[in-house]
């Protein structure tokens, strides 16, 4: 088997391993979040109180920390925090699993030597649409957590912020992949012509 044919098979196997690992990790995290007393962590945006954290550098001079994103850990588990943590784990797991399954099925056809089929056009377009959808969903969940934290959490020397800044990188990546789906559509048309040329 040539090297060019082996790579799709290797990638297919890697995605299959990824599907298994993702499912397993998601189940472990979900069980830990719901049924154990383990501490719950959540990303949070902070703005330090004025002049609280100053910076000095021989090369860069002086400055202050203006914005920071960190992870807050809570040992006492409120129902709201458990619900938000569970929602985020489910969102991450669903996004990863759906994308990995679509990718695995696409790579299967590539391994079989028939990548230019209509089913792959639909799969690749779905990947292109789902990446920004899932990306914005997960950012939305982080924002929702910060919104709740603003009203319920006090941090000495820090202000908790909740800003919904949508990362447009997801959108650009999605657009590129949707464009790639159109290339595959043309490829599928050419493949059909080739297959039906006697």
């Amino acid at each position, binding site marked *: 088997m040539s090297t060019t044919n082996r790579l799709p098979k290797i990638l297919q196997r890697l995605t299959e391993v990824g599907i298994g690992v993702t499912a397993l990790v998601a189940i472990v995290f979900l069980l830990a979040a719901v049924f154990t007393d383990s501490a719950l962590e959540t990303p949070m945006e902070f703005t330090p109180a004025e002049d609280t954290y100053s910076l000095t550098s021989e090369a860069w001079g002086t400055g202050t920390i203006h914005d920071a994103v960190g992870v807050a850990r809570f040992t006492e588990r409120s129902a709201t925090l458990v619900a938000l943590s569970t929602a985020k784990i489910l969102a991450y797991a669903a996004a990863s699993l759906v994308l990995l399954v679509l990718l695995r099925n696409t790579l299967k056809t590539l391994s079989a030597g028939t990548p230019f089929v209509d089913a792959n056009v639909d799969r690749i377009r779905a990947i292109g649409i789902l990446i920004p959808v899932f990306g914005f969903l997960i950012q939305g969940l982080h924002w929702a957590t910060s919104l709740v934290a603003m009203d319920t959490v006090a941090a000495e020397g820090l202000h908790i912020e909740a800003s919904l800044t949508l990362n447009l990188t997801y959108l650009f990546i999605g657009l590129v992949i949707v464009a790639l789906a159109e290339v595959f559509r043309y490829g599928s048309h050419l493949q*059909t*012509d080739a297959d*039906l*040329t*006697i």
Partner: protein
Amino acid sequence: MGIEVRLDRLLLDRKMTLTELSNRVGITQANLSNLKTGKARAIRFTTLDAICKVLHCQPGDLLSHTTEQEPPG
């Protein structure tokens, strides 16, 4: 489609089966079936040459052009 493939008629005249033609021409039965039923989108000259050699015919015996009738009105 405007191109008609008269493979059935030629096979009948030559008393040959599709299987036999497939073995002699070196094209799969599935592909010959696609050709016979009009599903094929194109035919290579090499294929046309091979079929005509085996069936002892001209391309015009195998292929014909039909004008699709315009609907009235």
